C-alpha cells in the first residue's frame, strides 16, 4: 500500500519508560528458601507459607502446557527475580516515594484522592485505584470512604493481615492450585494484587480498579487478585497494566478469582497494554494468566470485557463457572496483535445450574506478522436444563502475513440446552480504504477508524473513560500495520 505507511517503523509505546527508583530484591531463582523469604518479607501467617510451599511442590511435578497456538520462547524459571519492590524510607515508611507518584501520574492513574474529593473532577468519574508496582501495592485510594459502606478494597497483602478469614475461605476456591502450570507457579510465589469484598446488598458507589506496573528488569510479576461480591451486591472493576520497553522477555503470571453470590452482579474490564516487544519481536511481556469467576448463587451475573493490545505472548482465558440456577455471564473480547505478537485467548463457559445463560463475543484483529487465536470452551453439564449459549467469533486480517485461528469447543450433555456458534473472517478491503481516502481520511487513520468500528460491539461495553482510552490504544497499536 502507501509508501509513507511502509516507512513507519515500529510503534509508539508511550508507557515504555523506566522509573529510576531504588529497589530491593530477593535473590534470583526459585526454591523453597526463596518462597520462605518472600513470605517472611510480607509477614505472612504460617498457613499461607504452607499454602505456597504446597503449591511449589506440586508445581515442580507439573509441565508447562504446550497446546496453545504459540511459539513461546523457553522460560528459565531460575533466571527470574520473583520479588522486587521500591525501597521505603525507613523514617517515613508510610510515605509514597514521589518518583512512584510521578510514574502513576504519567500513566494517567490518579493516586491523588484529595484532588477528586475537592471537586476538581466530577464525582461520577471517581475511580478507586490499587496501584501495584512490581511486587508491591503502592497505595489503594478511597479505602476510607468505601469502608463506610462496608466495602473492603485493599492490597492482597493487607487483606491477609486484616481479613485472614475471608482470604482463607476464598483463596484457590475458583482456581485450584493445580489448575494449570502457571496458576501453580503463581500460588507459590504471588506477591501482591488487589482484594475486594462487597457486602450483601451494597452497590459499590464508584469504579474499583487495579493498575499493574512492571518496572524492574529481570523480574516477573505474579499478582493475585480476589474479588468477592456478596448477595445482591454490584461492582464494576477495571484492570490496566503497562511495562517498560526492554529487549528481554518478562513473565507476568497472574491469577484472578471472582466469587459472585446470589443475585450479585460483577463487571470486570481489562485493558491490557503490556509492552508488546519491538517490530522484530524482541522483548515484551509473556502474559500467562488465569482468570476465572464463579456465579455461585442463583441469578448472579459476571461480565468479562477485555481489550488486549499488549504483550509479546498472551495466553489467557477469562472463564465463568455458572453454578447458580439462572445465573449468566458474558465474555466480550477484542484482541489485537501486530508485528510479531502472538495471542491465544478466549474463554470457558461452564454451565452447571439450570437456566444458565452465556454469551461470547470475540473480535480478533491480526496485523503485521502476528498470530491471533480464539480458543473457547462451552460446556453444558447434564443438569443444566434450558441452558443457553451464543458465541460469535470474528477475525479481521490486516495484510497478508498474519494469521487468525479459531478453536471453539462445544460439549453439550444436556438435550434441553441451546448452543449457537457463529464465526466470520474478513479483511480491510481496498475499497474501504479508498472510500475513506476519497473523503480525506489518510490510510493510517482509516485503518484505525475501520478497526474501531469492527470492535465497536465490545468497546461500547467498557466503562466510559476506559472506552476512550481503549480506542486510542487500538489506533496506536495499529501504527505501521499496513505495509
Amino acid at each position, binding site marked *: 500500500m502507501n509508501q509513507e505507511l511502509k516507512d513507519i517503523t515500529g510503534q509508539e509505546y508511550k508507557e515504555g519508560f523506566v522509573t529510576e527508583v531504588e529497589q530491593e530484591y530477593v535473590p534470583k531463582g526459585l526454591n523453597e528458601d526463596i518462597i520462605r523469604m518472600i513470605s517472611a518479607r510480607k509477614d505472612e501467617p504460617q498457613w499461607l507459607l504452607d499454602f505456597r510451599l504446597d503449591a511449589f511442590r506440586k508445581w515442580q511435578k507439573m509441565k508447562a502446557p504446550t497446546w496453545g497456538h504459540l511459539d513461546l520462547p523457553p522460560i528459565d524459571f531460575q533466571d527470574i527475580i520473583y520479588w522486587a519492590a521500591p525501597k521505603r524510607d525507613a523514617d517515613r515508611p508510610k510515605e509514597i516515594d514521589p518518583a512512584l507518584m510521578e510514574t502513576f501520574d504519567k500513566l494517567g492513574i490518579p493516586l491523588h484522592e484529595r484532588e477528586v474529593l475537592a471537586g476538581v473532577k466530577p464525582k461520577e468519574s471517581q475511580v478507586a485505584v490499587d496501584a501495584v508496582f512490581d511486587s508491591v501495592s503502592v497505595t489503594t485510594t478511597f479505602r476510607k470512604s468505601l469502608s463506610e459502606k462496608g466495602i473492603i478494597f485493599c492490597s492482597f497483602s493487607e487483606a491477609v493481615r486484616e481479613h485472614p478469614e475471608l482470604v482463607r475461605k476464598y483463596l484457590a476456591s475458583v482456581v485450584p492450585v493445580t489448575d494449570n502450570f502457571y496458576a501453580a507457579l503463581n500460588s507459590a510465589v504471588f506477591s501482591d494484587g488487589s482484594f475486594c469484598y462487597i457486602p450483601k446488598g451494597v452497590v459499590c458507589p464508584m469504579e474499583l480498579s487495579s493498575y499493574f506496573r512492571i518496572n524492574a528488569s529481570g523480574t516477573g510479576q505474579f499478582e493475585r487478585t480476589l474479588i468477592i461480591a456478596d448477595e445482591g451486591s454490584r461492582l464494576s472493576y477495571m484492570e490496566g497494566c503497562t511495562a517498560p520497553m526492554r529487549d528481554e522477555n518478562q513473565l507476568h503470571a497472574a491469577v484472578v478469582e471472582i466469587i459472585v453470590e446470589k443475585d450479585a452482579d460483577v463487571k470486570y474490564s481489562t485493558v491490557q497494554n503490556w509492552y508488546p516487544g519491538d517490530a522484530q519481536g524482541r522483548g515484551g511481556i509473556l502474559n500467562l494468566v488465569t482468570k476465572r469467576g464463579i456465579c455461585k448463587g442463583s441469578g448472579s451475573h459476571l461480565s468479562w470485557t477485555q481489550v488486549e493490545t499488549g504483550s509479546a505472548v498472551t495466553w489467557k482465558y477469562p472463564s465463568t463457572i455458572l453454578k447458580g440456577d439462572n445465573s449468566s455471564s458474558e465474555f466480550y473480547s477484542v484482541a489485537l496483535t501486530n508485528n510479531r505478537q502472538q495471542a491465544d485467548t478466549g474463554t470457558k463457559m461452564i454451565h452447571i445450574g439450570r437456566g444458565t445463560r452465556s454469551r461470547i463475543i470475540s473480535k480478533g484483529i491480526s496485523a503485521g506478522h502476528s498470530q491471533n487465536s480464539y480458543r473457547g470452551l462451552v460446556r453444558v453439564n447434564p443438569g443444566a436444563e434450558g441452558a443457553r449459549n451464543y458465541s460469535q467469533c470474528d477475525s479481521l486480517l490486516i495484510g497478508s502475513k498474519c494469521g487468525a485461528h479459531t478453536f471453539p469447543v462445544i460439549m453439550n450433555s444436556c438435550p434441553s440446552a441451546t448452543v449457537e456458534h457463529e464465526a466470520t473472517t474478513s479483511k480491510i478491503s*481496498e475499497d474501504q480504504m479508498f472510500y475513506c481516502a*476519497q*473523503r480525506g*481520511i489518510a490510510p493510517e487513520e482509516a485503518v484505525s477508524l475501520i478497526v*474501531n*468500528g469492527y470492535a465497536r460491539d465490545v468497546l461500547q461495553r467498557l466503562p466510559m473513560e476506559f472506552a476512550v482510552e481503549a480506542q486510542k490504544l487500538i489506533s496506536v497499536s495499529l501504527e505501521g500495520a499496513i505495509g
Partner: protein
Amino acid sequence: MENDILLQIKDLHAGIEGKEILKGVNLTIRRGEIHAVMGPNGAGKSTLSAVLAGKPEYTVTSGSIEFAGRDLLTMTPEERSWAGIFLSFQYPVEIPGVTITNFMKTAVNARRKAAGQEELSAGDFLKLMKEKMAFVQMKSEFSKREVNVGFSGGEKKRNEIFQMAMIDPLFGILDETDSGLDVDALKIVAGGVNSLKGPRKSFMIITHYQKLLEYIVPDVVHVLKDGRIVTTGGRELADRIWQQGFEGIDE
C-alpha cells in the same frame, strides 16, 4: 479566461490490469460549470471518475491532469480530496460499526487538519450535520446508522449527496448517482447539486440517461465512447441522445 479553468485533462490514457480503457481523453472544465458525461456501457465513464479520484488499481499510462493549477497525477487520493475533489460513488462502500456521525467527524476534521485549521467543536459539528441531513431529507436516526450498512439503493445515493454537502467540494463528480433512483430521490439529489453550485465550483455528472439532466441543467454535454470523447455540445445534445441513442453520435 485561462485562469478560470478548474480541471484540464490532456490526452489521457489510462486503464486497469494492463487493459487500456481511456484512449486519449481531452476535457476542460471551467469554474462554475456543470458538465455531463454520457456514453454507453463500457465507454470508460467510471474509469474517468476513478482516475480523477486516484483509485489505486488504475494506472495512467500517458497524458496529464491539472486541477486548480496543480498536477493531480502526483497526488494521493486523500490529497486530491483535500484539494477539493469529491466523488459520489456509484457503489458506496459499507464500513460496519462506524456511524455516519463518526465517519463524517473523522473526515471533516482530517480535512481541517490538512488545511491547518482547528477541529470543529462538537456543537458546531452537530449543527452542520443537522443542517445537511435536512438538505437530503434524512431523519435524525440516520446519523447513528453504520456507513452504508443495510442501506437501500436510494439511501446510499442520498448518503453520498449528504457527504458532498458536508464537505462542500470545489469539484463534485457524480458517478451514475441517478441509476436506480425513483423520481423523488432523483429530485433530492438534483436539489443537492443545485444548491451547492456556485461561481467557483464545478460538477461532472456521469449518467446513462438524460432524466437527471432535466433537474440539473448542464452547461456542456460530452459523449464518451470507447475511451474517447467523441462529441461535445450543449444541453440539447442530451435530448438528441435520448431520442436516437448513442449509435448515431460519432463525429
